[in-house]
């Protein structure tokens, strides 16, 4: 492959952006799209909720009663219970592993129960406030039924909640990464349309006479779409903050990493769009192929709907979808403040992007 020439990348970027910004309709919809999307999702899904599959339990006071509680929770079948080692720090585990709910049975639990007939458990919710409420309710039901099981005692086990997220996170925060993912998918959809149209209209052939290479064209297109998406997403975030009171974890570091994630994602999805566009030979096929790629990815990567209750095979499929890493990276950075994504998800996303970029450049042809 020829070394990329920055001059050519800039030349096509200018040509493309000038043509794009000459269309008032394109600008309007580009700006209106995130506004409409944010308002619709804020309004419609504001009340939706679900529960996590994984609940981390640390039993600092092993005893018959404490283990009975753990077993009862496990028996509900709703939670996938993970018992944390006594010596581990539950707080470190939460921040390192992006768990959405945890239950602590404190050291004085058995002693308090034996001496006073009453004791407390501490529930920690880290996810969507609606989900936290649901999780708390389920656990509370377990605790209440335990109270009834213990003969001769009035209900005395208390589940205290420690919603660490309530202080900082709002409902809207959980939609923003998904909506950013959606704006990226939008660019991919545009490519699925553009590639067969440019081929049919022989614009690719004309571009080939300029000496610009296929790689330069892909990079230039991705760069243009990236900046356009950053603009859209900036509007989206501003609306999320101003209208819905969002409070995401935007620092200089997370903003820079978010930009890296966005550019990698753009290169990746532009590449997928080009590959999909190459197999579309007419407008009908374009729609079918576009929808076949976008819809499963949207639902199976957890863009809008958490996969907490999805069957395990769906989660396995999700692990193979590039969008999953994109959304997970954004979720972990912006919601859970989990910087371990820099070690796994973000590198995986970058590798995915480079691989798809190289494959799309290799397979794409100016002329059929």
């Amino acid at each position: 492959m020829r070394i990329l020439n920055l001059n050519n990348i800039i030349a096509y970027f200018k040509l493309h952006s000038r043509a794009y910004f000459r269309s008032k309709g394109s600008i309007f919809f580009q700006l209106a799209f995130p506004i409409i999307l944010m308002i619709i999702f804020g309004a419609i899904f504001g009340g939706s909720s679900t529960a996590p599959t994984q609940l981390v339990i640390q039993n600092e006071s092993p005893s018959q009663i404490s283990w009975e509680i753990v077993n009862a929770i496990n028996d509900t079948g709703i939670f996938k219970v993970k018992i944390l080692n006594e010596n581990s720090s539950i707080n470190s585990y939460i921040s390192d592993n992006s768990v959405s709910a945890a239950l602590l049975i404190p050291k004085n639990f058995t002693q308090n129960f034996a001496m006073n007939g009453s004791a407390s458990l501490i529930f920690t919710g880290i996810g969507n406030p609606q989900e936290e409420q649901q999780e708390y309710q389920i656990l509370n039901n377990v605790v209440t039924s335990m109270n009834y099981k213990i003969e001769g005692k009035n209900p005395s086990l208390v589940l205290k909640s420690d919603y660490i997220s309530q202080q900082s996170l709002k409902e809207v925060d959980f939609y923003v990464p998904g909506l950013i993912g959606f704006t990226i998918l939008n660019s991919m959809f545009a490519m699925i349309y553009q590639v067969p149209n440019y081929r049919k209209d022989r614009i690719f052939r004309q571009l080939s006479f300029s000496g610009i290479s296929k790689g330069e064209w892909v990079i230039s297109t991705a760069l243009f779409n990236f900046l356009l998406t950053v603009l859209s997403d900036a509007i989206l975030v501003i609306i999320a903050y101003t209208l819905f009171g969002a409070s995401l974890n935007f620092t200089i570091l997370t903003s820079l990493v978010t930009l890296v994630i966005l550019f990698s994602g753009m290169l990746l999805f532009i590449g997928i769009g080009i590959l999909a566009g190459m197999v579309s030979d007419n407008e009908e096929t374009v729609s079918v192929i576009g929808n076949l790629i976008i819809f499963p990815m949207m639902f199976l990567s957890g863009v809008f709907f958490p996969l907490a209750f999805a069957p395990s095979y769906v989660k396995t499929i999700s692990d193979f979808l590039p969008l999953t890493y994109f959304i997970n990276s954004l979720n972990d950075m912006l919601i859970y403040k989990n910087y371990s994504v820099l070690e796994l998800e973000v590198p995986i996303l970058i590798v995915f992007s480079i691989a798809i970029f190289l494959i799309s450049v290799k397979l794409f042809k100016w002329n059929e």
Partner: protein
Amino acid sequence: MDNKVIKVTNLVKKYGDFIAVNGISFDISRGEVFSLLGPNGAGKTTTVEILEGIRKKTSGEVIILNEDPENNRKLIGVVGILPQDFNFLWNSTPMDALNFYKKALGSKGDIRELLEKVEIYDKRDVPFQKLSGGQKQKLGLAIAMLNEPEVLFLDEPTSGLDPKARRNIWKVIETLKKEGRSILLTTHYLEEAEILADRVAIMNHGQIIDTGTPMEIIERHHNKDRLIIRAPQSISQSLKKVGFVGNYSDGYLEIELSESRDAAKIINYLVDENLSFEDFTLKRESLEDVFVRMVGDEDIESE
């Protein structure tokens, strides 16, 4: 010094069992306008696209300015190309397009001068889709001319244009010709080839069936010349007496001539004998008449 800028030898292009180009050979000299003529499906565009380097040949040899064009970046910008049905990005203007090519090709061409040369400077900021067919082709020509190429490929440059727009494009091509550039012109307008081309090659079914100057082609293949005289019917009897038989219809006598100089004999006879006639025309077959007969019933309207 070799004066040939393009050499094509035994060029073959097959698509499966179908042979689109079947062993053609031709060459183009420096400063020459060479035209490939042929009906629909004759293989003209396939040949040009192989020469442009965007299509792979099956066999044979193609040399352009001492280079094989296949996968050869050395010829980008050195050869100017106006493809058939030139098209460009929606909403881009002639100014945007030429700025892009100038930057990408590293060209020193003067964009204003170029736009003025093709007479679309006043349309420099008009979005591509709002340009007329002729203006679009002129933009395509300007792009092809940007790097002042020694060789130009013009594939159906006036296809679908009205007569005025066509003549405007001819004017630009004539300027290029005067500048000494070598041009490969494909067209199905025979009049265009007759006016612009130094030599033509007539293609049919993937083969070149004749090559030469338009006059040479006409000389080799034309039917007999015809003399048409506007005169009273009595003149046909007078001429019959001296051995010139023709058909009289609607005030015109049409005589097929064995030799072209018989035309002079007939007119002299009419003048000497004081036989009255109003006017006369000597009709020779055009390249188009010859071409249509050579390629038979093929569709010559479009490719």
